[in-house]
């Protein structure tokens, strides 16, 4: 179920990367490093000014990874606004309302984030086809601390994104428990990004 496109009003659209080839390659490298080393924070200094409602890092992820072959689920708060037009113009990606079909999802209102299990979890033949969620939070530090272990982490790492709702970490643990299936998470705040792939085991301090 993809969303029928409407005509874009070009006069409202902000520019994307100034030098798309070099800048999207640089951003790709940083996103890849973030996913390869969970718990580390990457600063996407090249990220252009994103439209209202979207953080710069989320915009850079969209410009780098979304294209005409990836269907994208957008947070309802972004629908119909400048961010939706910007993503459609620069990424040419189809938008979808069906979370189970989305290759990517952008969540800006994390308190109202739909259950992680409602997104595409991949299938036995192609577990890589699951949804990658871009979750926009107020800050990458200051929240409840979660310790991480797994591939890409030598001993232990921690993340503490702020503003995650109650029960979110339970969902992340359930997501890891069904590996090889599961979604991959990218947390963004401002121009900073950290990744939490499905392969990572999460322990909450005090549990």
């Amino acid at each position, binding site marked *: 179920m993809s969303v029928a496109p409407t005509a874009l009003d*070009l006069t409202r659209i902000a520019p*994307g990367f*100034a030098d*798309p080839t070099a800048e999207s390659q640089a951003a790709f490298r940083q996103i890849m490093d973030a996913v390869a080393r969970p718990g580390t924070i990457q600063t996407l200094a090249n990220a252009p000014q994103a439209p209202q409602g979207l953080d710069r890092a989320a915009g850079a992820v969209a410009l780098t990874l979304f294209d005409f072959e990836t269907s994208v689920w957008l947070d309802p708060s972004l629908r119909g606004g400048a961010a939706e037009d910007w993503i459609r*113009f620069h990424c040419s990606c189809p938008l979808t309302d069906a979370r189970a079909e989305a290759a990517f999802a952008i969540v800006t209102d994390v308190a109202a984030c739909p259950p992680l299990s409602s997104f595409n979890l991949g299938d036995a033949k192609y577990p890589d086809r699951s949804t990658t969620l871009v979750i926009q939070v107020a800050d990458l530090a200051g929240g409840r601390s979660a310790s991480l272990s797994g591939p890409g982490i030598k001993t232990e790492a921690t993340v503490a994104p702020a503003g995650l709702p109650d029960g979110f970490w339970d969902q992340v643990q359930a997501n890891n428990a069904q590996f090889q299936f599961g979604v991959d998470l990218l947390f963004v705040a401002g121009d900073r990004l950290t990744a939490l792939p499905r392969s990572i085991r999460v322990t909450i301090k005090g549990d």
Partner: protein
Amino acid sequence: MSSEAVVETTGERRRWLSILAKAMASEVIAAWEGLAERPAFRALRAPEIGMVMVRGRMGGTGDAFNVGEMTVTRAAVRLESGETGLSYVAGRDRRHAEIAAAVDAMMQSPALRPTVEGAVVARLAEAQTRRRDTAARKAAATKVDFFTMVRTRSPA
């Protein structure tokens, strides 16, 4: 850009976009460089080169078929005064695409339009007409008229 600044109908805009798309890159660049004042602009979508499938219909009305792929370059720019223009041009010349988008933006602005209407758009249209005429004349010179000899009665 205020809404009343958009004065063009789709048909007119289609005409100049078509002229800019089919013009030769060297002509577009020369016409642009020849302008006394060129507004500053920045890229909304930096020029990118791609391919489009050209489709045709048999006999103009029949079933659609793929004629073949052609290279196109597209760009979108915003002038400092706020107008937005876009272009899809034939070939792989990035500068051509950028200038075509800037001219499209200027053509949409009543204030800037006189600057480019004659010096760029009309000039390119004229060059295209001239090229088509030359080609048509060269083709016409090779035309062979087939006719049937009328048998004449031999003098008795």
